[in-house]
């Protein structure tokens, strides 16, 4: 910090405070749209960040093509917001409406498919270059506050958020529509029975929420511009805002956005490297003091939504075990049939199978859906890479150390996560994972940042592809069998009891949180184990391995394989890895993957193993 006189210093802090307020505006708009949509539709709309991004791009192109002048500038911003709202209507009526009675995870998945599609469409339409936003006409200057300059546009941003807050309050508390929205937030089945057309209400709310996200993207354009990373960056921050402010509370969203804005504004002065860590600390403190957020109420029961996994898991029958044994023998004979490229793919499949199995462990029997499992998988990869890089540990030791270090991280993250449930928990895991990612990404000196860590190769004896394949296969099968053992051990039964009836479990004297915490840690450890081996199979590691899309890859594997059977994750990772390998060479492959996500959710909710089980399961019973 530069040395300044006392008066200027005060001005400097004041301007910093105002900057924080103006940063909070866009975040608030996105978060309150997210909160509104979740409240009524019970959808955590991951595509909300995409709407924000599209709002920024659209505003840029509209303003660029309009005549000059203040009127056209603001008309462009408003039109961008309304266009995003219209896109929201199309998505709601064509896609989401089909999924309202599907399990929450499926809907989330569909919205993540939309994220992928919008990523590629935006790249296609708007190009991959970062765009610098236009200045607002008449507001390009700065004002002098106690000798320090503040851009005039920041003042506009500071004013807009409270205006929207008041406008929304008026809408929700003083109009018939607002009353219906609040009624549907509490009990949508009942308001349906009282004559309120839910579909129309849902479409209306989705339109409003999407408009707010688009407006958020558009108004921050003069300050922040537009780029293709905006979507996932804002969605993680918006999740934190919603969790901190309290789900469904719009004043809470504003309060939390302001706190986070200020935290970043002043945090930059103290830890310029990792302001996101401060965000995490804030969230942690709030969740410990007030589990439902600053202004939130207890989680409302979700009425009419289906549970994720309800099937009773049974140990495999003798016939199925024989089949499994045959599959194992086939896997061990693989090097005879496939070339070295095929072996690399098989190695990857085995590692992903273990990682997605560990996710399945908390998701299926544990009932805790995590959107941030890549943090553990990637954490394991980084833990192994860093120990090799800085301490020259041999591969064998690094593979052992990775899960232990990641287990420690999972122990810390898990302690917070098990205090929540359902989508709140999912959002928290996503936010935690995004923070882990940004630590790795921002702390370039230690982790290599975007350049990653290179040259992490296996020990000499395992450097042959075939030997490494056998090593991976044995370790992964061991890991998967260990997880299976936990599922059918008394611990696994207790875990399922916690999932199915938390009240009953509490009343018979089981410490639910402790069981779930242990399961969470265990899952993280095994994912870290897989990650530790993964880095040696690749020879290098980049922050991508911890990013949100990777977390969704694991979820996708489970969904693709089928969530009702233990074999699902394994089948899913094989199918996914093969599919990914096939389409990754195509230019707009994210678009294709997104479409496959959505198709899968709508048409094949049972997944591969699930469908086979339904059709042929009876032939394999004892």
């Amino acid at each position, binding site marked *: 910090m530069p040395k300044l006189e006392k008066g200027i210093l005060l001005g400097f802090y004041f301007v910093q405070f105002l900057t924080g307020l103006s940063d909070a505006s866009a975040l608030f708009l996105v978060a309150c749209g997210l909160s509104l949509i979740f409240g009524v539709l019970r959808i955590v709309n991951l595509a909300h960040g995409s709407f924000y991004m599209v709002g920024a791009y659209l505003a840029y192109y509209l303003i660029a093509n309009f005549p000059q002048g203040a009127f056209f500038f603001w008309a462009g911003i408003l039109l961008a917001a309304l266009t995003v709202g219209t896109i929201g209507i199309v998505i709601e009526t064509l896609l989401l409406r089909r999924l309202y009675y599907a399990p929450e995870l499926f809907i989330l998945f569909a919205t993540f498919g939309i994220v992928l599609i919008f990523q590629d469409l935006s790249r296609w339409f708007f190009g991959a270059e970062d765009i610098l936003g236009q200045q607002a006409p008449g507001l390009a200057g700065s004002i002098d506050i106690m000798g320090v300059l503040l851009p005039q546009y920041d003042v506009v941003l500071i004013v807009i958020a409270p205006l929207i807050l008041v406008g929304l309050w008026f809408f929700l508390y003083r109009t018939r529509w607002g009353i219906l929205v609040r009624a549907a937030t509490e009990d949508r089945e009942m308001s*349906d029975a009282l*004559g*309120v057309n839910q579909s129309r209400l849902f479409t209306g709310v989705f339109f409003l929420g999407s408009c707010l996200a688009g407006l958020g993207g558009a108004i921050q354009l003069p300050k922040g511009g537009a780029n293709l990373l905006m979507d996932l960056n804002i969605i993680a921050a918006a999740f934190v805002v919603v969790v901190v402010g309290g789900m469904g509370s719009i004043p809470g969203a504003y309060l939390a956005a302001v706190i986070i804005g200020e935290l970043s504004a002043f945090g930059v002065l103290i830890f310029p490297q990792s302001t996101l860590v401060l965000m995490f600390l804030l969230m942690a403190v709030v969740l410990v003091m007030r589990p439902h957020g600053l202004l939130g109420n207890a989680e409302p029961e979700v009425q009419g939504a289906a549970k994720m996994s309800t099937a009773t898991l049974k140990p495999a029958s003798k016939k199925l075990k024989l089949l499994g044994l045959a599959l194992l023998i086939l896997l061990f004979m693989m090097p005879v049939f496939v070339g070295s490229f095929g072996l690399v793919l098989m190695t990857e499949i085995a590692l992903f199978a273990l990682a997605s199995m560990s996710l399945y462990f908390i998701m299926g029997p544990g009932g805790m859906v995590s959107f941030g499992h890549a943090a553990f998988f990637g954490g394991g990869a980084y833990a192994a890479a860093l120990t090799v890089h800085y301490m020259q540990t041999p591969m064998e030791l690094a593979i052992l150390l990775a899960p232990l270090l990641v287990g420690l991280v999972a122990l810390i993250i898990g302690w917070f996560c098990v205090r929540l449930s359902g989508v709140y928990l999912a959002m928290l895991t996503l936010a935690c994972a995004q923070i882990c990612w940004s630590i790795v990404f921002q702390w370039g000196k230690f982790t290599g940042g975007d350049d990653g860590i290179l040259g992490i190769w296996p020990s000499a004896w395992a450097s042959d592809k075939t030997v490494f394949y056998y090593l991976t296969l044995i370790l992964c099968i061991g890991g998967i069998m260990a997880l299976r053992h936990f599922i059918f051990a008394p611990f696994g039964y207790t875990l399922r009891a916690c999932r199915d009836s938390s009240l009953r479990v509490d009343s018979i004297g089981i410490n639910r949180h402790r069981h779930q915490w242990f399961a969470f840690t265990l899952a993280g450890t095994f994912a870290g184990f897989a990650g530790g081996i993964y880095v040696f199979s690749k020879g290098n590691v980049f922050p991508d391995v911890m990013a949100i899309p990777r977390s969704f890859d694991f979820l996708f594997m489970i969904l693709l394989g089928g969530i009702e059977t233990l074999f699902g994750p394994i089948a899913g990772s094989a199918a996914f890895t093969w599919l990914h390998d096939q389409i990754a060479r195509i230019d707009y492959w994210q678009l294709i993957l997104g479409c496959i996500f959505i198709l899968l959710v709508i048409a094949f909710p049972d997944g591969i193993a699930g469908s086979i089980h339904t059709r042929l399961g009876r032939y394999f019973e004892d």
Partner: protein
Amino acid sequence: MEHNIQDIILNVESLNTYYGKAQILFDLALHVYCGEVVVLLGRNGAGKTTVLKSIMGMISSKSGRVFFKGKSIDKLPPYKCCALGLGYVPQDRRIFKGLTVLENLEVGRQPPSEGYGEWTPARLLELFPNLAERRNHLAGMLSGGEQQMLTIARTLMGNPELIILDEPTEGLAPVIVNHLLTTIQRLKSEGISILMAEQNLNFARSISDRACIVYQGQIRYQSPIAELSQAAYEKYCAL
């Protein structure tokens, strides 16, 4: 009281409803005449609530027909049934706790159907004086009895011609039950038909015209309430 077939306001024919794979209703048939109060008696789990929810479209039945005022409503979503003049009062009240009393009434507001008086908040607050005092309180702050009144008032805001009442007396103090009785009599005198599930036999006797006994998902017995056979009641309803 003699009825003509064209006076039937609600007619249910061979209704089959499932929860997942478990069948709850078996070819259930039922009818309500205009202005009649019909009570469904039966044990817990006999299927009374399922009948009511199936009629309202809150559970989709697998087969069977439901006619309301001669129109087929078995495929309609609840809000359309409501618009036709069906009112539903749920068992567990389900008031909107975070909304005020007046806002709760607003949610139920529907345009009146022909020949039925328009219920306004003013008229309803006159009918339920307790609610009038608390019109701007959050509904979550009301007592159980007041909540039961509110849930009926809220449904009346839709100006229904037939009200479905699911165990209205459950969990209410005797003095409130008496108040409820006069309220329902008042509604009946306005010409509103009522289909009600009830476990309280005394209450049912004093208000309804006809009793239907639901047993294992079927109507096993029905008669005018005055002729309700003790033997049938004990066979199907006693524990």
